[in-house]
């Protein structure tokens, strides 16, 4: 195969990944089946890594494939798979359309920035928080951009279409509630979008080579890649075309070198070179007698191996420490002790230490009960979604968030299993209840309750009043959402630090009526 074709292949693959990922973050109708979500997020480095160390299943080996690919061919991930990288390429493509004569210029790597930006999430992760990974992960940043900035526009467009069609009584499209991200999520997302746009317009893939920890990590591996893009000295005419086309600004014509740790594998250089003088070569063969390189390679492999061993070891001991912090079920106070995490997330401990706040679940949740948090989980849980019963409640039969979550923060759960997962418990303040205060019928809480953990019992005359059975409550929040009293609701769900098992509601058989009986009227 001619290497000049590499760029075309890369562009096609990149567009497939990019468009698919944009769509799953936009789609509020959940038009695509679960396996599509799984396959399209399979190769996303950070989510795949987190899911793998959580569930330990070969189904989530995507990040290993990326590591192997990098050891073979360098950072293919960055231009063909990473949606944030491809987004920058799209920005740069537009720039090129406008400024046709634009040329990149070789620059030195900013090691004083890129290594700290790699060390920060790694060290804090070992210390037990996924906070900085979430802030810096390119997939999650991309997700937040589409979910928080583009999805409202998409829904708005859909609603405009629905509104026009409704005028002629066509109901093919239907309007959907637009939920706007909490300010801090919005501001951070806009900041990242502005930052990557500015940096890419300024100097190509600068973000990927200074701030992105995945880029820097894969860059370390790319130093030892089996095949690397190199300049062939005796063919090169020093025309400089490759360097001018290099988005990573990593080709030095002066030294005839390619800094492969910064190369994002866009293949602009290969396709532009008129002399076929820059291409993938196997440096091992060329420099078989170079002991320096082999030494460096061994060092990198050893340190990366050490890193992973450390991560697995520490993570295990951490999860063991998490256990005994749950509140007593009997401690019912009219206040919320914990935010509620979605079913399948096991509890606040597991969830907040695994979720990178990519907001794919927020985009996909049909009731929009999953909303980005502010300080519900504390500062390190910023932007991680929580169950917001002000907005809506969790649908009993639905497990979409557990199907789409790419990082393993919300683990796969069957609809049947979900019915006994208790994510929080119901609390009742009778003094706030409209039946108690106004002596008028209501029953809204009990009506919405899927387990009858809230049931209506005789009160005065023909009136009924709610009574709770927290042991069979699943914590879905339907009662809290439906309660009509304001400013304070009479019924609410307090989250569990660790999810519990809800007892099954008891089932007594009812007597089947005999059809032969006459009508009672």
């Amino acid at each position, binding site marked *: 195969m001619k290497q000049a074709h590499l760029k075309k292949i890369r562009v096609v693959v990149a567009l497939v990944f990019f468009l698919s990922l944009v769509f799953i973050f936009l789609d509020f109708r959940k038009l695509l089946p679960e396996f599509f979500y799984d396959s399209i997020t399979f190769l996303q480095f950070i989510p795949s890594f987190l899911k793998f160390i959580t569930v330990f299943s070969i189904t989530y080996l995507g990040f290993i494939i990326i590591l192997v690919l990098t050891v073979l061919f360098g950072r293919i991930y960055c231009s063909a798979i990473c949606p944030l990288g491809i987004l920058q390429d799209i920005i740069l493509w537009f720039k090129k359309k406008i400024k046709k004569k634009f040329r990149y210029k070789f620059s030195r790597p900013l090691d004083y920035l890129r290594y700290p930006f790699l060390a920060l999430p790694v060290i804090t992760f070992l210390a037990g928080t996924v906070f900085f990974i979430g802030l810096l992960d390119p997939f999650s940043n991309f997700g937040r951009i589409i979910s928080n900035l583009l999805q409202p526009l998409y829904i708005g467009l859909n609603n405009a279409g629905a509104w026009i069609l409704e005028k002629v009584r066509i109901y093919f499209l239907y309007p959907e509630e637009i939920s706007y991200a909490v300010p801090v999520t919005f501001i951070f997302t806009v900041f990242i979008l502005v930052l990557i746009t500015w940096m890419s317009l300024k100097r190509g893939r600068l973000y990927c080579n200074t701030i992105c920890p995945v880029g820097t990590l894969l860059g370390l591996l790319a130093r030892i890649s089996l095949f690397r893009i190199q300049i062939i000295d005796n063919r090169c005419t020093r025309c400089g075309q490759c360097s001018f086309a290099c988005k990573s600004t990593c080709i030095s014509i002066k030294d005839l070198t390619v800094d492969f740790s910064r190369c994002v594998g866009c293949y602009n250089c290969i396709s532009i070179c008129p002399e076929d003088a820059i291409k993938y070569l196997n440096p091992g063969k060329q420099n078989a007698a170079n002991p320096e390189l082999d030494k460096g390679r061994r060092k990198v492999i050893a340190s990366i191996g050490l890193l992973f061993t450390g991560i697995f070891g520490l993570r295990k001991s951490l999860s063991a420490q998490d256990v005994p912090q749950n509140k007593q079920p009997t401690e019912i106070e009219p206040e919320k002790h914990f935010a509620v995490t979605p079913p399948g997330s096991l509890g606040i401990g597991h969830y907040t230490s695994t979720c990178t706040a990519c907001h794919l679940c927020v985009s996909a949740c049909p009731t929009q009960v999953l909303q980005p948090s502010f300080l519900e989980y504390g500062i390190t849980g910023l932007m991680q979604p929580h169950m917001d019963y002000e907005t809506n409640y969790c649908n009993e039969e639905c497990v979409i968030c557990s199907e789409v979550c790419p990082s393993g923060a919300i683990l796969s759960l069957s609809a049947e299993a979900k019915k006994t997962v208790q994510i929080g418990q119901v609390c009742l303040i009778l003094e706030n209840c*409209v039946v108690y205060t106004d002596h008028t*019928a209501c*029953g809204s809480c009990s*009506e919405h*309750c899927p387990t009858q953990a809230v049931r*209506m019992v005789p009160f005065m005359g023909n009136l009924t009043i709610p009574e709770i059975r927290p042991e069979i409550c699943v914590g879905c929040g339907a009662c809290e959402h439906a309660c*009509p009293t304001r400013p304070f609701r009479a019924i609410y769900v307090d989250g569990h630090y660790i999810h519990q098992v809800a007892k099954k509601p008891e089932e*007594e058989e*009812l007597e089947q009526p005999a059809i032969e009986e006459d009508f009672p009227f």
Partner: protein
Amino acid sequence: MALGSYNKIFGGTSAEQSYDLVAVRGGDPATMFDKAILSLGGIKSYVKPNQTVVIKPNIGWDGPPERGANTNPALVARIVEHCLTAGAKTVYVFDHTINEWTRTYSNSGIEKAAKDAGAKIVAGNSESYYHQVTIRNGRKLKSDKVHELILESDVFINVPILKTHGGSILTISMKNLMGTNWDRQWWHGNDLHQCIADYASEIKPTLNVVDAYRVMKRNGPRGVSLSDVVEMKSLIISEDIVAADAAAAKLIGKEPEQIGHIRIASEMGVGKSDLTGLSINRITI
């Protein structure tokens, strides 16, 4: 096509149409509806060629038909077929669901059944579909936002399912109207029974068809499991919404007077809760 109008003109074959209420038991939902509507002179007594029809089943909850929380899909489909046979231009089916509507429409089985029968399924999830209406005789509920299809369609067929209800004791035809309006929560906070009766005094279905095939005897309106449901295999049909509810209440073993909104609606003259003076056709299959 014009058979219906001829029947009206000559009045000849319409002896059967004098029933105030028809109750059927012992058949499947579709057959029971066939028998009941025949004894009211057929659907052509209500649906004229080229008219638009809106059918409002109970599609409140995300669950399968066996749970008895939503109207039987076979019954909805049968009503759609009757309307289309009578020459209806369009038959719409919608509800303002309680659970997330796309899942509820689909898992209730009603979306598929109604579509296959030729109806158009319409969303009820957006406030933009609902328009302000004055409740002229409302005591508590003075105005409310009502779905445009209810306001515009020529024929409105109300198809509730009979269930127990934690707040309103029972939910039948009048309670099923809660789902043609936008803000249900206000009713709950402001004397539920009175609001139900007030609304029924203004928004009047052409016909009420009460599905009592599978009946939720406890834990209503949503139910916890299959064990809450008994097979009563019955159906009640009446133009008088209060009479339909009174008969259905008796079917499940409650006195109409015990149910606040049935008692109030009767007092307000919305319909008759006393069944003794009514001409009732009782059919056992």
